[in-house]
């Protein structure tokens, strides 16, 4: 096989891996939209907030240290201990559940029955609030996140494949972080599906997603389900934050990964978990292949806009996305 062809295969593989990371972000949007009809603009910021909280807990950082020090004239920054990664992740999950409860109790419970655009606007406000509170709690400097996920190209894959294409081919490059992210994403989706299919709360969640009124009539607590859904979205956001944060450090830009999820949602549909996965993979492969093959001819840096073009092309033929529900409103 020619080296050029093999490099193209490498691009496809890496596109699939990148797609998994996009899908992780998109998954959080889908969970909330499906259960409550809310397009959660704050999903990217939740990933940032989750990762910031995780690093803060791991490093024993005092939350709101700047405010405490400025108010009381103290010089507190660290508790003086560090927390193992696994325990810190569990504690962060607890924080994300608390956040979900607060978001529901203080924001969305008061907006039941409002127009979708009002709910969307509320999530924009929530995004700005979380950005600010994240900075206040943990500071705005770039933080290193090390939860033990290996990074760098897999030498095993590289050595195994290096003989395929002659001297010009150096073997396939696959980042170990991307492999880990893919495994975690598969486990996460499997776990979410199992939860939705085989648990009482999961079935209740699906019932609410199908019909709020009917679910209410059989005694399902909408408040509980919405807190549950926001908690799950928070956990998914935390996983996305860990994967992206391990690569770039935990910083404000993590909140912008939501932009990567939008074309995935347009393509896969806002209400389908498989749609988020397949959409992510198509966007990941599509943008990487386009950048590799066409990018150099038109000046490069095509990935950001090409993802949207690809999604729009799909929308021409399937306005509801690949797996989305077809909604016909008669007037």
């Amino acid at each position, binding site marked *: 096989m020619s080296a050029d062809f093999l*490099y193209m295969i*490498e*691009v496809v593989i*890496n596109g699939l891996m*990148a797609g998994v990371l996009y899908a992780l972000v998109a998954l959080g949007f889908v969970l909330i939209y499906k259960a409550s009809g809310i397009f959660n603009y704050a999903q990217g910021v939740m990933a940032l907030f989750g990762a910031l909280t995780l690093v803060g807990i791991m490093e024993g950082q005092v939350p709101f240290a*700047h405010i405490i*020090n400025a108010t009381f004239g103290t010089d507190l920054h660290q508790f003086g201990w560090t927390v193992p990664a696994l325990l810190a992740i569990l504690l962060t999950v607890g924080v994300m559940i608390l956040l979900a409860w607060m978001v529901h109790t203080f924001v969305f419970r008061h907006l039941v029955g409002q127009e979708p655009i009002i709910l969307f606007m509320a999530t924009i406000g929530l995004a700005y609030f979380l*950005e600010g509170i994240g*900075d206040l709690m943990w500071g*705005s*400097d*770039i*933080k*290193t996140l*090390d939860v033990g996920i290996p*990074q*760098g*190209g897999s030498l095993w894959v590289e050595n195994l494949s290096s003989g395929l294409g002659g001297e010009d081919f*150096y073997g396939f*490059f696959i*980042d170990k*972080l991307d492999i880990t992210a893919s495994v975690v994403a598969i486990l996460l989706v499997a776990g979410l599906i199992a939860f939705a299919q085989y648990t009482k709360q999961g079935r209740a969640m699906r019932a609410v997603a199908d019909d709020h009124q009917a679910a209410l009539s059989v005694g399902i607590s909408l408040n509980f389900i919405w807190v549950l859904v926001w908690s799950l979205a928070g956990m998914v956001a935390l996983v996305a934050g860990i994967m*992206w944060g391990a*690569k*770039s*450090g935990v*910083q*404000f*830009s*993590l909140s*912008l*990964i939501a932009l*990567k999820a939008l074309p995935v949602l347009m393509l896969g549909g806002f209400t389908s978990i498989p749609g988020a996965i397949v959409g992510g993979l198509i966007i990941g492969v599509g943008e*990487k292949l386009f*950048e*590799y093959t066409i*990018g150099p001819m038109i*000046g*490069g*840096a095509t*990935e*950001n806009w090409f993802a949207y073009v690809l999604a729009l092309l799909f929308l021409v033929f399937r306005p509801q996305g690949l797996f989305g529900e077809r909604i016909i409103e008669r007037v």
Partner: protein
Amino acid sequence: MTMKTLATAALAGLLASGPALAELVIPDLSYRTGPYGANGTPFSDGYQDYFALLNARDGGIGGETIRINECETAYNTEKGVECYEATKGDAPLVYQPLSTGITYQLIPKVAADQIPMHTLGYGRTSAAAGETFPWVFNYPATYWDAASVAVNYLLSENGDDLSGKTIALIYHNSAYGKEPIRTLEELSEKHGFTLTQLPVDPPGQEQKSQWLQIRRDRPDYVIMWGWGVQNQVAIQEAANVGYPMDQFIGNWWAGAEPDVMAAGMAADGYKSLNMNRIQNYPVLDEIRAQVIDAGNGAGDGSNVGTVLYIRGMYTAMLAAEAIAKAQELAGSPQITAAQMRDGMEALEITNARMAELGMEGIGPEFTVSCENHSGSGEGLVQQWNAAEQVWVPLTDFIAPDKSVIDPLIAEDAAAYAAENGITPGCL
């Protein structure tokens, strides 16, 4: 309404709208929020803390206290212009927007409003031509100087011969990132190396395609024109694909602690340009004692001594020296923006003066003139030691190739003058 009431109202109006007298007003178009906040914060802390030190230690400059007027731009060009419009009525002496995008928008505005702008090592390179851009200064060096300094360094590493070598430029796909391309193209022709260009869309969280291409093409060197998260991701991706760190050189906006910390030990050996030598200057101790410990710091003091803090402090020092020169030329401690411009154009920075200020060797010696607003153009190369978490200077200040840069500046400035109906000349 009596005449007395009218006069009182008029006086009150004047007091409320006009700037307070006997103050030197310095706007700080900072960015402490948004995707570039981690870079903007230490720079702004350094910029403000130096002025705070002058206020605390010397009572200001020439007996006039300095007042900072901070406005948050979030590195957003529209917000930067808003900040300029919101602060220009406060009798500001000099703007420094710390953004090439904002700089480009402000160039015609500062000329119309006659307020000088200092874009230290960023902005529009051809603003070095002071006869065409009398209100813009970019000393001590420009982007084109930086590109040339990087190539001169690589020449020195390769026996003054880069023929047959390949250099990849990975750049922020913005006005900032595109600045060095013209110079590097000229230099590639002159020295016979092949230049490949790899743009990264901002903010730069995803760069897999670019680094797969680098892995495939294996250029001899990679030069980076990055900012913010682009730098952190690029350094991590370079480590991931096994690109040698000592062949990877960032410009001076891609060589600070936030850029390398996230990659941990993988960033060891990464090189970057700098226009400032990083060391523990005596002036930093003064800032700690008289500003931070006194509770007057712009931040909590944790950034003191870092690359971008020192650069912010250096920028403030250059502004303070220009104010002192302007006061000397005007024969008065109270100066206008126009007099400040005259001070900037007559600025001379010597080693003796830098030593006197407690920052010996922090930057190159240079003089500014009507014809040359960019100074000497020198820069040094530093390398990250990840184990010690320090930047180690590898070279002294390296001069750029002015024989390539000056004609490019003249050409670009002439085109700007023609487009905008400007007759070049000294003010």
